[in-house]
């Protein structure tokens, strides 16, 4: 009887521990995938967004903002994104034909399934819906616009292999609202996701 009780407690404990996986935590893209090496090169196309009046159309702000991840080699490029080919490129001036209506920005990523289960990202490009209004850290004030710094920090999270988090306040939390600059920095949950991958 004592043995039965012991095993009942043991099994219950195992079940409780197994189910104690945090319901609120970061999510990696599935299947899990990452770039082969760090730092990860991400270029921002030099033609900026016409709604951003900081002098570079948000290009300089974006280049600076995405360094928040700590593993990004960030600079500008005069070459637009070539889908399917690295480096990862951020396009502020076009929706790429894929990000329209209610889409603010979209990341298009490409990878091969490997036999080892360690999948590699080969390319990821970010497109911006130019039908919406944006502002950057280089501007003062906001009136119904979306923060390009935060949007691009979030999108680069996808570029490096992170999905959406359920942790409110995390940069990879999926919701976004106008005039919210809270995504300019990465939070503990985002760092945990990054550190899981790299």
């Amino acid at each position, binding site marked *: 009887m004592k043995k039965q009780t012991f095993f009942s407690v043991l099994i219950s404990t195992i079940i409780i521990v197994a189910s104690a996986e945090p319901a609120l935590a970061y999510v990696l893209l599935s299947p899990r995938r990452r770039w082969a090496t760090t730092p990860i090169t991400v270029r921002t196309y030099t033609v900026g967004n016409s709604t951003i009046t900081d002098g570079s159309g948000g290009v300089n702000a974006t280049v600076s903002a995405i360094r928040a991840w700590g593993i990004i080699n960030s600079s500008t490029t005069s070459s637009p994104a070539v889908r*399917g080919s690295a480096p990862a490129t951020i396009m502020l001036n076009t929706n790429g034909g894929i990000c329209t209506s*209610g*889409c*603010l920005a*979209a*990341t298009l990523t490409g990878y091969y*399934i490997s036999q080892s289960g360690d999948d590699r990202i080969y390319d990821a490009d970010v497109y911006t819906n130019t039908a919406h209004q944006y502002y950057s850290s280089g501007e003062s004030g906001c009136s119904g616009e979306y923060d390009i710094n935060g949007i691009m920090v979030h999108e680069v999270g996808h570029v490096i292999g992170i999905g*959406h988090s359920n942790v409110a306040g995390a940069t990879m939390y*999926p919701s976004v609202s106008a005039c919210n600059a809270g995504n300019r920095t990465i939070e503990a949950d985002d760092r945990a996701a990054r550190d899981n991958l790299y």
Partner: protein
Amino acid sequence: MHRRSLSLITLLLIVSAMPLSAAQFIVQPFERVATESKYVVRASVVDTWSAWDASQEVIYTYATLRVSRYFGEVAGPDTLVVREVGGTVDGYTQEAIGFPAIRRGEQVVLFLSEWDDSTDLRIHAYNQGKYLVRMRQDRTEVLVADPVKQGEERLSREQHRFEAEADDNGLTIEEFSEMVDAARAGEKPHAARRQ
């Protein structure tokens, strides 16, 4: 009218209860999604295939839909083909993170509109334009938002929990139909418009 309001509130609760799960999207009011769509259909996904575009830059997945019902005042052919960004060709997979995925064998209700650059059809308003049809325990068909988007090959524990709850709380087909009719007729809803 009261019932329609409740239905809309239910729909908004369903949408707001789950992550927007997107690249980064702005949630559109239901009536806007309904009125902007060319077709609103109940269909089976009978086939899918993927191919590069002509410039070899984007992989698109094409899905053949066998349509069993058109909602609203506009009807169309029994078979439609939908084109969505993302897919796999020769082992290389391209995904638009958070965009809707469309899979063979699914029972769906879709809002469809044309691409900006062609008359090909796409799911309108991204994930807001796609519902899975599920059978409730009382054998009533209900609509639930698809919890698995591109970049999410499998469900997290929380998504599983949400999906199970959504099955119980989903809109019935007829409630949905009434809402589409009302939206396309220009009737104003009585619930909050924005998440």
